[in-house]
């Protein structure tokens, strides 16, 4: 391990889809307890990196290390059980389930028996934790609603709540602010900072620059499947390579 305590590490990761290389020898490290940003123009390969980290896709080459152990060859559910939870760029909630049920199903019960006990699925511990997550994400009042009946920004929160319910040690957020209004984005910022204080490590993809700059301890910039820069927000903001590749024309970080 290079970093003192890295939670997630990409080592020379390559992902090709037929002819196109979505990721080309990508290396980066997510240290424990930090919020790390992954930014870059459309099609840079950010979501692909998430898909590899969560086991949804298999790597073409390279190694992915989670808490000191490689996750190569693991099925997605095995990766999730190791402690990585994620949200999706295109929301993927369970259409027949209420918000509360999303939390219950995502929360793995340790006892197999409890799993099949009627009404027992949600034990006291599970219930308390789930209530707390509802509270944190501001979904308490909506716990018995179906996803379709919620506005888009709220659905994003349900995705985050579902991810949190699995008690991850690494949270992957794919454009969590997309579709949220200013207030909601502000609340989310507070929530993520609070989760970090409680020790959660977060890797976030986001196009909203002010949000990323305020949130992250460290930022990696991806372009055409390569990490072209990495550093503290203010360093990245000033990096000429980054400016020309990504932030240049629209001055996305000026605000």
């Amino acid at each position, binding site marked *: 391990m290079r970093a003192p305590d890295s939670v997630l590490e990409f080592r020379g990761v390559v992902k090709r889809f037929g002819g196109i290389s979505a990721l080309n020898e990508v290396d980066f490290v997510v240290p424990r307890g930090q919020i790390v940003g992954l930014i870059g123009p459309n099609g840079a390969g950010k*979501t692909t990196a998430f*898909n590899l980290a969560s086991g*949804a*896709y*298999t790597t073409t080459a390279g190694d992915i290390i989670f808490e000191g152990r490689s996750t190569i060859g693991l099925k997605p559910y095995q990766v999730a059980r190791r402690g990585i939870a994620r949200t999706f760029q*295109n929301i*993927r909630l369970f259409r027949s389930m209420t918000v509360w049920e999303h939390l219950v199903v995502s929360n793995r019960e340790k006892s197999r028996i409890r799993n099949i006990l009627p009404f027992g699925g949600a034990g006291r511990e599970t219930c308390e934790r789930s209530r707390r997550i509802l509270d944190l994400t501001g979904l308490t009042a909506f716990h018995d609603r179906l996803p379709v009946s919620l506005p888009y920004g709220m659905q994003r929160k349900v995705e985050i709540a579902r991810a949190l319910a699995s008690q991850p040690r690494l949270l992957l957020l794919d454009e969590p602010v997309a579709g949220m209004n200013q207030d909601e984005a502000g609340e989310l910022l507070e929530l993520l900072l609070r989760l970090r204080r409680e020790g959660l490590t977060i890797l976030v993809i986001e196009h909203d620059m002010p949000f990323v700059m305020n949130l992250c301890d460290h930022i990696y910039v991806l372009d055409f499947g390569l990490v072209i820069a990495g550093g503290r927000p203010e360093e990245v903001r000033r990096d000429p390579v980054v400016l020309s590749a990504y932030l240049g024309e629209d001055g996305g970080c000026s605000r």
Partner: protein
Amino acid sequence: MLLQQLINGLTLGAVYTLIALSFSLVMGILGVLNLAIAELFMLGGYCGLTLIIMGHSVWLAVPAAMAVSGVLAVVVERVAYRPLRDAPMIMPLLSTLAFSIIFQNVAVNVWGSDPLQLPDALADARLSLGTASIGIMQLAVIVVTVLLVVALGVIVQSTKLGRGLRAVAENREVARILGAPASRLTTAAFALSGSLAGAAGVLIGFHYAAITPYVGVDTGLKAIAVMVVGGSTRIWGVLIAGPLIGVAEVLSVVYGGSAIRDMVVYGLMILVLLLRPQGVLGGSSMPEGERV
């Protein structure tokens, strides 16, 4: 003797081919198993045989049966498919099944549950071919099948309608987005498919020299297997699979092992479904490339 059985097998196979093509037209374009086809086939058979018994020629009976089954297929499309086209595939599956229940009931009430026999004079007329002989009716089966397959080939390969159908079969999603005139194509696919089934019904009547209201289910299921084994969206594979299974069936009836034969046919169907992750059938399993 063997040659004779081969000829019998070919005529049965010809019928399977036509019904399989009928299933495959709707399946390829809409991804729906139209279970009413089995009974459209049976009804076509009754219409055709009734005309023949009344003394009309094959050249009237077959087109008439095609017209009746084609029109009924459009009714099925309008009532049972169209309102449910966005529903899970189980819905159109069952609503077309409902139609087949209705059709079968109608046939039983109109023609009775005893077989409708072809007149002996026709059924027994044979053309000698050296050591073997071929029944006039068997000859008709093969001639009509060849004509219909050629006609279908022309329609699919070189008409505007055919190009549309192929485009949709190639990629349903893309075709929908590009705005292929889906509604008209859907109707056309059902009509074509229905008339093929109708013709096949007349031909099965020739093959067995009789028709019953219950001929649809067994033959229909077999034809679904033929469609799958031949590749459900590619039309031409069926031309090989149909005769093959027809010959296998006739030989196994004569030489024993007909239950084994069915196991082989359906086993083959399952195997084909399993071994073609997407290829011929398109989307039968989860590709790794699915976007997340």
